[in-house]
């Protein structure tokens, strides 16, 4: 078995979560890496949709932006930005929305807008919403991938850019949101899933070699742990090779 980094473990775990035969609305960065790895491993027929309007992109190298020429050149169809949001995302055609985050809270709400309590005088001004609010609302389910830290995993996000489970189970239904919302969070330490009853993110898997304490200490709320906490299978040789090729080609 090769050595691998925790980031590589995270990308492999995220890729594995994407099922063959489904479609995925892909954010740039970690989600795009994972989705492209999935296409090279167990899900060659995974349909990648990028908000730039590339439907069914099959990039041979990792795109650096959501609008790389490579995505357009390999896509089944290239449509306008209004069309990708209105005709393809909004009706709930896409199985999985795959998002990153700056802050994530225990109910899977995502912040990519401002750090700090005052929107008008923020501690840090982040890039903003992009496509995420509607991806989080309209995809059948949402996966979130980000590195674990107390700064990122907070009790309550400073700003809800993209709605997860609000204040708990039932909020999405009350608001009329059609997708199931975040069903999986992939980190460099393990996997979290919303509790079936409360929707609170709960640790269900640890990556190999990670101590439970590490996961608890890098979470800004009192992290609940599943009774049957499992260990993620380590990356396969083939997964690592393909991931490294992909990342190298994208540089």
């Amino acid at each position: 078995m090769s050595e691998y980094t925790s980031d590589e473990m995270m990308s492999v775990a995220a890729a594995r979560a994407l099922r063959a035969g489904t479609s995925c609305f892909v954010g740039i960065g970690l989600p795009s890496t994972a989705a492209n790895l999935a296409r090279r491993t167990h899900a060659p027929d995974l349909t990648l949709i990028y908000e730039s309007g590339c439907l069914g992109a099959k990039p041979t190298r990792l795109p650096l932006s959501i609008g790389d020429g490579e995505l357009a050149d390999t896509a089944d169809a290239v449509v306008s930005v209004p069309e990708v949001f209105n005709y393809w995302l909004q009706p709930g055609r896409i199985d999985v929305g795959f998002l990153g985050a700056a802050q994530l809270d225990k109910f899977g709400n995502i912040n990519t807008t401002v750090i700090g309590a005052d929107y008008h005088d923020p501690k840090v001004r982040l890039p903003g919403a992009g496509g995420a609010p509607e991806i989080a609302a309209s995809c059948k389910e949402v996966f979130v991938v980000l590195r674990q830290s107390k700064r990122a995993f907070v009790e309550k996000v400073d700003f809800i850019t993209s709605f997860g489970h609000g204040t708990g189970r039932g909020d999405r239904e009350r608001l009329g949101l059609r997708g199931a919302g975040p069903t999986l969070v992939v980190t460099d330490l393990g996997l979290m899933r919303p509790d079936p009853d409360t929707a609170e993110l709960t640790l269900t898997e640890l990556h190999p070699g990670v101590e439970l304490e590490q996961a608890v200490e890098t979470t800004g709320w009192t992290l609940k742990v599943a009774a049957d906490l499992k260990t993620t299978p380590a990356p396969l040789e083939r997964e690592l090779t393909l991931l490294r090729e992909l990342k190298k080609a994208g540089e």
Partner: protein
Amino acid sequence: MARVLSLGEAVAELVHDGDTVALEGFTHLIPVAAGHEIIRQRRRNLTLVRMTPDIVYDQLIGAGCASKLIFSWGGNPGVGSLHRFRDAVQHSWPVPLEIEEHSHAGMANRYVAGASGLPFAVLRGYTGTDLPAQTSTIKPITCPFTGEQLTAVPALNPDVTIVHAQRADRVGNVQLWGIPGVQKEAVLAAKRSLVTVEEVVDELEPRPGALILPSWAVTAVAEAPGGSAPSYAAGYYERDNSAYQAWDAVGRDRDEFTKWLNELTGVKA
């Protein structure tokens, strides 16, 4: 019918102090040369509109051209933050920057409404988020048939929209291929429009995936070869990723930025 002008003439004629100006291009075909010309011509108090303000908007903001930004994602894609944008928002440098913040779906639909001659657009958007509390241009609307509550956003109708395309013919018909973004909508939503192009040709040969903006829907066309670098123009040149990375160091520091600005505008330090 569109008039074929030089870039300098076109910006002088179409972009005025205080205007609402949209430069669109989604990763692809960003009208950077036109943005630089606006900086050179020292426009002030612009309301800048763009779904994805990136480095050319960082430059316009740092140069003090803008008093307001309407946007949905402001960053240096693949690199990190826009430091001039952050500095303006957090420290009002060089001038205060008001912001009006939306999501991509909201912005795209605002252009669609603008292009369609409608005062607003309807979408499933923003639900449950903190954006409506900060952005007065997001309101609820009820379906008159089902009673369902949805979201309305007002049309965007810029005073002038600027986009970049691959080609135009000599009477000003524009041909654009590759990722089309929201350019057609942004042009049709605007009172005036400028399309910078890689080249003006005698005849536009049909191409797979190309869209055409007819001459009579465009105000002016200006030849600006390489005019979307460091973004890319499908069929002409690739994205210069190193330029995006290099901008981080320049944008991060007011002095470095000022040097860059002086170089662009030809001011001796």
